[in-house]
């Protein structure tokens, strides 16, 4: 039997366990290893190669612990000891992954402030909640808490006349003009009807002057009291924090409205005051720069808190630095679930096709789900093997009941049954989900779609790709997928040739409606779908001139040219950062060698690669060409925390906070988790919202009133 583990130098090391071990014992050993390694760090085991197991050194403590607490047969025990011994060697080279700060504090903070605000309006009241606030609110409070603070009835804000007999109305809303206008209308209607009520608007995460101006203009300013609920951050999981502001993306990048910049700055300030200051801040993007400035202003203003920092480095990145990654089909389990079922606020609704019953179930997907937490970051192709192994284990565990006496049975029911049942429920859910996803993907010829995406990423057989996209449009298959492929084509090719652009646009409008004209204008504005301009010919000139002068001059020339034509430069970036692995050898998805595994080994997410490079270099030095191609706007600042403290080798030094402005995908989160494991550090993702290709493009559609 072959036990392999990875050493820090990334070479595979094998540990051969003496083959005289009886095959039944081998099985037991394998079982044992799988059981204690999962959860600590995924082991890689493939049913097709039953005599080989690949272990991550991080599972050593778990092995050792299990060895002590669970009686194993002496032969297996000694075998495990020997594995543990050799893992120890590998492990000492690695650092233990640092623990994460406790983010539940943020939930309590938000809940307590909400309670405080509700108490500002004593007595019974009806509460109206913005639809998109309901799920976030659900994560931090429940009906009981609201009732305890005299909330009588709960309503969803629907911008329609209301039916409420309460004398006090409280509105919990996002600061949107439309909603405030609706509230003003309600107040004015009450006035006409001679009805007296008290009104209170609680804006979250902050109020905007524009909203108050509406109240003033509608003549209800004095009748309505307003407040702010600074619910900036919702922890979605141990390592995911969300601002739950999907509109951030369109407002900031398309409309050029900076209203949320301070919100993001305030979120960072909140994190800093709860978890300590940072030693170093890196960032790239126009918005990232503004957020950093805003945050700095806020901190300068407030009192300096000197606490032991719980994380030390921060990386801010704009979504428009990397549009390629969110446009790719996701193939990591969590990303795939999001693409197909849409995870909303950390929860997903599985329909009858998954549950094999007539009802749908809502499930929380996070690290609490023991089955999910082990497969979430896996490439979909590994999930089957894992689930069937789990199913077998479960069967074995249940089978233990046979031949038990009363006493044993009692112990079994008390200690194990509940856990087994829970696992059984989760396992059948995820098997159902995998099956349903497989069916859906087979139906839409996913394989062909992926092949096209990979060709585009590599810049190979572009004509064939265009033909494929054209047929996709012609057949009126998914409007969003067609748009997604068009955008990928445009970004990877630095814009479409004029004749292709016109022809594909015309066909798109024919298939999905001419009203998409405005959608195309939006995409063009963002640089997602462009026609190659006359400026493109500059590139040719640029390279010709480049041959005549030295590198520095070329750099200056490129600067000048790129200011003339905003280009994505994907191909050049991909080459420079080695985003598309070139090797001809097979990519073993069970043993990922880099972050490219999240896209089947075809592409390393640009955003994550940038983070990796900057952390490695502790700044942007040596990446001048890359940042130039990304239109500059990069920065690296040494933060306020005292340097001696920052130098100390604390866990905090290995916790990196990454803030995505404009949304982040689950594939990126998986890639960062992988990177963290590789480097012995942990990433915490702060995002304005979780996004994926559909959400990103839907935010830019303009085909309905």
């Amino acid at each position, binding site marked *: 039997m072959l036990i392999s583990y990875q050493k820090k130098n990334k070479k595979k090391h094998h540990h051969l366990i003496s083959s005289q071990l009886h095959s039944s014992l081998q099985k037991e050993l394998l079982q044992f290893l799988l059981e204690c390694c999962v959860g600590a760090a995924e082991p890689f085991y493939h049913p097709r190669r039953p005599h080989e197991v690949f272990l991550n050194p991080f599972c050593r403590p778990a092995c050792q612990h299990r060895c002590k607490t669970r009686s194993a047969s002496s032969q297996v025990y000694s075998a495990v000891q020997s594995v543990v011994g050799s893992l120890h060697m590998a492990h000492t080279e690695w650092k233990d992954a640092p623990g994460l700060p406790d983010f539940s504090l943020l939930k309590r903070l938000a809940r307590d402030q909400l309670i405080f605000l509700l108490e500002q309006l004593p007595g019974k009241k009806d509460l109206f909640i913005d639809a998109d606030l309901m799920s976030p609110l659900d994560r931090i409070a429940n009906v009981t808490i609201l009732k305890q603070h005299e909330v009588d009835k709960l309503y969803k804000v629907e911008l329609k006349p209301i039916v409420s007999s309460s004398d006090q109305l409280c509105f919990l809303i996002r600061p949107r003009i439309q909603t405030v206008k609706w509230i003003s209308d309600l107040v004015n209607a009450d006035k006409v009807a001679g009805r007296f009520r008290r009104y209170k608007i609680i804006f979250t995460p902050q109020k905007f002057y*524009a909203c108050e101006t509406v109240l003033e203009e509608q003549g209800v300013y004095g009748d309505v009291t307003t407040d702010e609920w600074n619910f900036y951050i919702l922890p979605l999981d141990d390592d995911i924090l969300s601002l739950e502001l999907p509109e951030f993306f369109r407002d900031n990048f398309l409309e050029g409205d900076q209203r949320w910049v301070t919100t993001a700055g305030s979120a960072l300030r909140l994190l800093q005051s709860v978890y300590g200051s940072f030693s170093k801040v890196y960032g790239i993007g126009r918005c990232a720069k503004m957020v950093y400035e805003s945050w700095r202003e806020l901190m300068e203003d407030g009192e300096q808190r000197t606490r032991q920092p719980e994380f030390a480095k921060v990386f801010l990145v704009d979504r428009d630095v990397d549009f390629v990654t969110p446009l790719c089909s996701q193939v990591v389990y969590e990303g795939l679930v999001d693409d197909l079922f849409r995870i909303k606020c950390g929860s997903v609704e599985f329909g009858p096709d998954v549950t094999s019953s007539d009802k749908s179930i809502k499930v929380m997907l996070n690290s609490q789900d023991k089955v999910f937490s082990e497969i979430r970051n896996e490439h979909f192709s590994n999930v089957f093997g894992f689930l069937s192994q789990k199913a077998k284990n479960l069967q074995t565990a249940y089978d233990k009941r046979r031949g038990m006496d009363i006493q044993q049975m009692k112990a079994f029911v008390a200690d194990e049954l509940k856990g087994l*049942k829970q696992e059984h429920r989760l396992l059948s859910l995820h098997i159902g989900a995998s099956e349903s996803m497989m069916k859906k993907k087979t139906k839409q010829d996913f394989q062909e779609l992926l092949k096209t995406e990979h060709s585009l990423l590599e810049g*190979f057989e572009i004509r064939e790709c265009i033909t494929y996209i054209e047929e996709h449009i012609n057949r009126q298959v998914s409007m969003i997928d067609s748009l997604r492929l068009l955008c990928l084509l445009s970004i990877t090719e630095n814009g479409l040739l004029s004749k292709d652009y016109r022809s594909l646009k015309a066909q798109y409008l024919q298939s999905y409606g001419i009203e998409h004209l405005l959608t195309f204008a939006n995409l063009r504005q963002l640089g997602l779908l462009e026609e190659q301009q006359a400026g493109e010919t500059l590139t040719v000139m640029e390279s010709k001139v480049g041959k005549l002068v030295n590198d520095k001059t070329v750099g200056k020339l490129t600067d000048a040219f790129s200011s003339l034509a905003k280009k994505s430069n994907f191909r050049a970036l991909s080459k420079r950062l080695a985003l598309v692995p070139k090797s001809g050898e097979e990519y073993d998805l069970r043993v990922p060698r880099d972050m490219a595994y999240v896209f089947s080994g075809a592409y390393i997410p640009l955003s994550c690669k940038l983070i990796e490079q900057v952390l490695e270099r502790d700044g942007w030095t040596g990446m001048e060409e890359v940042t130039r191609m990304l239109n500059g706007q990069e920065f690296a600042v040494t933060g306020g925390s005292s340097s001696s403290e920052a130098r100390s080798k604390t866990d905090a030094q290995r916790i990196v906070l990454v803030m995505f402005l404009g949304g982040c995908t689950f594939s990126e989160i998986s890639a960062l988790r992988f990177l963290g494991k590789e480097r012995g550090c942990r990433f915490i993702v702060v995002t304005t919202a979780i996004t994926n290709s559909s959400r990103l493009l839907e935010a830019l559609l303009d085909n309905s009133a």
Partner: protein
Amino acid sequence: MTRAKPEDDEYWNSSKFKAFTFDDEDDEFSQLKESKRAVNSILVDEDEDEDDVERVSWSGEPVGSISWSVKETASSIRSGSEQSFPKIDTTPSLSKQGSGYSLSSLFKAKSKPVTEAFRKIQATYAPELRKPKSDGKDFVSDLSPEETVRRMQKGRPFSLEKFRSLQDKLLLLDEAVAVYDGNVITAVSQILFRELMARDVALRHYVHYLKEMGEQKLLLMHYKEHLNIKDEGRRRDFLKSCLSLPFSQDDATHVQDHYTLLERQIIIEASDKKADAEIFKKFPRKASILNMPIITTLYYSCFYHYGESEGTFSSPSNIRKTFRISEKQYILTALGARAKLKSWFDVDSLFNTKNWLGYTKKKSPIGFHRVVDILHKNSAPVQVLQEYVNLIDDPDLKLSGALKYKCHDVVINTYRDLKDRQQLIVYREKLERDSPEYRKIQELLNNVQIRWKN
């Protein structure tokens, strides 16, 4: 520009992505099915422990969650039709203490120890809430632009009264922009815009100026207005009015198309609404054709108006010509519509071409594997599928198509031609015993004249 380098070729011929396919014939998938059976077959005692399973309402929301509760309120309003107001909740309120139930008492009641850090944070955040926001009301009108913007950012009292002159207003705006605070920028812009609004003439000039500048986005925003018009006649008239706007040449064609399309759709809709031809009875229309995309309109016309002469607006050929639809697109759409109606004769004639000797031959601007796919999705019988599978050029695609759509003859003949005895034996096992296909393989395997390669 995309000439492949030799290593690219090598790369693509290698099996980098072959390890896993999204194909339900894959054994990984059958493995999954097996696991499902296994998991489902595990007997679990039916008594579900209450605390283990989340209680969910009929809609799947956990009972007691806010989303669930909101839905409950909504449905109680709907069901309580005899009352104009919802019932007053008679369930005992959990909070008997009333308003005396304060934040601090809640803290005391907490059983979990509050960490020191948390207490500190509470102290920094909570008092700020209680702090009256009215410090120094008198001097706020004498503040500099910089100070005013800072105050606005922090939510302290401020006054914009002082900024009377345009110069001052612009200074204020510059300051707001400089601090990247969108909230403040909008607030300051609002006062500037109000000035503009107050001068109607100036506003009109400005709007006209934007138009003259040929602001394409602005023109498109105007065009978008049509989506707010519900009445199709008025919508058509609005689109007509858009035709004179200075769109880019490219977009002008599309807007023209949009107007023409709606105009035609209104005519077709009016006549088809009362049409009593056989086809309308057999396949009643599910929705109106108004405001549908061009291709959907073409499909509709291929479905209900196939074979009409080009002179009528509703005929496929008229639509094809009017909107310059490519041959490929036309064939795809017509194929879909005729296959849906199971008019295999029409399907055949879409691809038939006569050569100079008068022989008919099938030709297609789209790959025949695609044609087969569409036919299959419209549940074409095996005989029809078989004919088109045979037309697939690429031998690999042909075999995989034949296997996928169970065209036994094609599969058997292909293996025979490849002299692949082993594959034939494997395939035989998938067939029903004594079916004609089974016997055919049997005969081939018994044929001593074939020189098998394996």
